[in-house]
């Protein structure tokens, strides 16, 4: 994810520079303009909405809107659920793909076949699987048929819904991280293992001292991807449980999208700033942790 240095330093190597930067700006301009118009400028301007009381009066209220969002119970619930959900999903989505990638790396047969199977769920639209999941977890579903025939329950609208969503998430996005981690494993030079063997290192030692260490960059990336992908889970929740799901799977997305339908600019702007700051802090922390780890070897 981190940008590499350019192929050659433009300042030092004159010959690298291509004249006619006017044409280059022309190529770049649409993208930058679009980004400014649809993302950056409205985001910055929305600070105005965050500090006024309402669009009609337009009185300056300072940080009151922020305080209102942070103080509201539904925001607490949404934040709490999102943090827990993201944490659980990210852990599962690292451990399971790591195991699969290790096994795949060990035997290296039928690679294309396994890619096909593990990546396929990722391209399947959420809507296409709704009916099936409902018939697995719903009132007359497979789970009830097998275990709770006498007291069947709709598990999608129960406290267990959380784990159902985690399961579906894993089914869908594990393939992405399997590919990433497998590529990471393949990048570790075989010689390292051979040297270790000569030095008399056992399998476990090789695993902890070579595999785990040199996989850190790929694992970090997989971590970030799992983090990003976990914000896409709204699709599954919406498809399965609608816009107002059980409170166990009421996420920040639900909180924010409800403000959209109410067109509450004040809450919308302030909550988006809060989420952005939180998210950027988390990513920065991760980034520096990874730096630290990488520096140590």
């Amino acid at each position, binding site marked *: 994810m981190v940008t590499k240095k350019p192929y050659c330093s433009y300042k030092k190597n004159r010959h690298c520079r*291509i004249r006619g930067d006017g044409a280059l700006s022309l*190529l*770049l301009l649409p993208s930058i303009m679009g*980004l400014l118009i649809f993302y950056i400028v409205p985001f910055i301007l929305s600070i105005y909405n965050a500090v006024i009381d309402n669009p009609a009066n337009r009185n300056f209220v300072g940080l009151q809107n922020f305080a209102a969002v942070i103080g509201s119970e539904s925001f607490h619930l949404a934040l709490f659920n999102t943090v827990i959900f993201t944490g659980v999903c990210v852990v599962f989505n690292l451990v399971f793909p790591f195991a699969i990638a290790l096994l795949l790396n060990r035997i290296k047969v039928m690679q294309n076949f396994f890619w096909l199977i593990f990546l396929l769920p990722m*391209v399947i639209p959420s809507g296409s699987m709704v009916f099936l999941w409902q018939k697995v977890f719903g009132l007359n579903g497979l789970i009830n048929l097998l275990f709770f025939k006498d007291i069947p329950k709709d598990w999608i609208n129960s406290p267990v819904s959380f784990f159902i969503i985690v399961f579906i998430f894993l*089914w869908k996005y594990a393939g992405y991280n399997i590919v990433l981690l497998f590529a990471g494993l393949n990048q570790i030079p075989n010689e390292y293992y051979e040297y270790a063997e000569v030095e008399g290192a056992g399998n476990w030692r090789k695993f902890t001292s070579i595999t785990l260490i040199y996989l850190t960059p790929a694992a970090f*990336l997989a971590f970030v991807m799992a983090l990003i992908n976990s914000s896409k889970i709204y699709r599954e929740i919406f498809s399965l449980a609608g816009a107002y799901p059980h409170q166990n799977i009421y996420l920040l997305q639900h909180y924010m999208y409800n403000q959209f339908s109410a067109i509450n*600019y004040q809450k919308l702007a302030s909550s*988006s700033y809060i989420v952005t700051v939180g998210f950027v802090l988390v990513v920065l922390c991760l980034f520096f942790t990874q730096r630290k780890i990488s520096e140590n070897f």
Partner: protein
Amino acid sequence: MRAKFIKAFILAILLFSAAVFFLPLLIVLTNSFMSSFEVLNRYSLRIIPSNDFGTNGVIHFVEFGVIPRMATFSQYDALLFQTRVYIGYFYNSLKLVTPIVAGHLLIAIPAAYAFEVSSFKFKEAVFFIYIVIMLLPLQVTLVPNFIIAEFLNINGSYLAIILPAIFNPFGVFLVRQYLKGFPREYIEAAKLDGAGHFRILKSVTLPLVMPAVAALTILIFIDYWNVVDQTVIFIHDSTKKPMSVYLAYLAKDIDIGVAFAASCFYMLPAVIVFLFGQDYMVEGIQLSGLK
């Protein structure tokens, strides 16, 4: 001998996980060839006289199966030819995703090229902003999207989804990642021959970044084919909703007789794109990571 045994064991574990991953899809696929009557018999909640086993006296439980009692295209027939509803929603999805993919490629490829060859002093700083926006979760970036849609008065139309999607920084990032491994000498040579940037982009760079373009096309297509969040926020007219959202309603509806065929019909374009471009997609995923 022992090594062979271990290998076989590992393969068995992998095949088992693969089977677990594939089973849900297999059921959806094969069950789409059952008659509506059979689907109703197998999956209906209410006890129906024609099939009363698998009940607890109050409700009827599902009877999952992979092989239809009698294979038929009747679900597809009902879906595609008896009514225009599904075709309509499918068409909505197409109308949404086609301009997004085309526009995204059109904007992202030149921008990625410009980022890579430009000698602009702050280009890495600007690119960093691209990456930050790319990483932000959807619920955050949707807020500026919404504000500008209200401002431009396009809330409620597909444009409110299409325009921000076209300018999403993901494509610029992915293509530039690929360009980094690209031999600079090609550009130099073209330059010496008197080609301008447009010419180099078209005749030199574009043919060489085709794998990245393919990967990008697939990733963008499957992402927006499955668009839900934006639809919930921007599209209020129910006839304009894409298939992704409509199917969620369908599953809770009474029309379960065609549910599997509708699911297959809807996933078909994504699966075809995937099967043709699987290698590119794997490459694209690895590209999004390896520096």
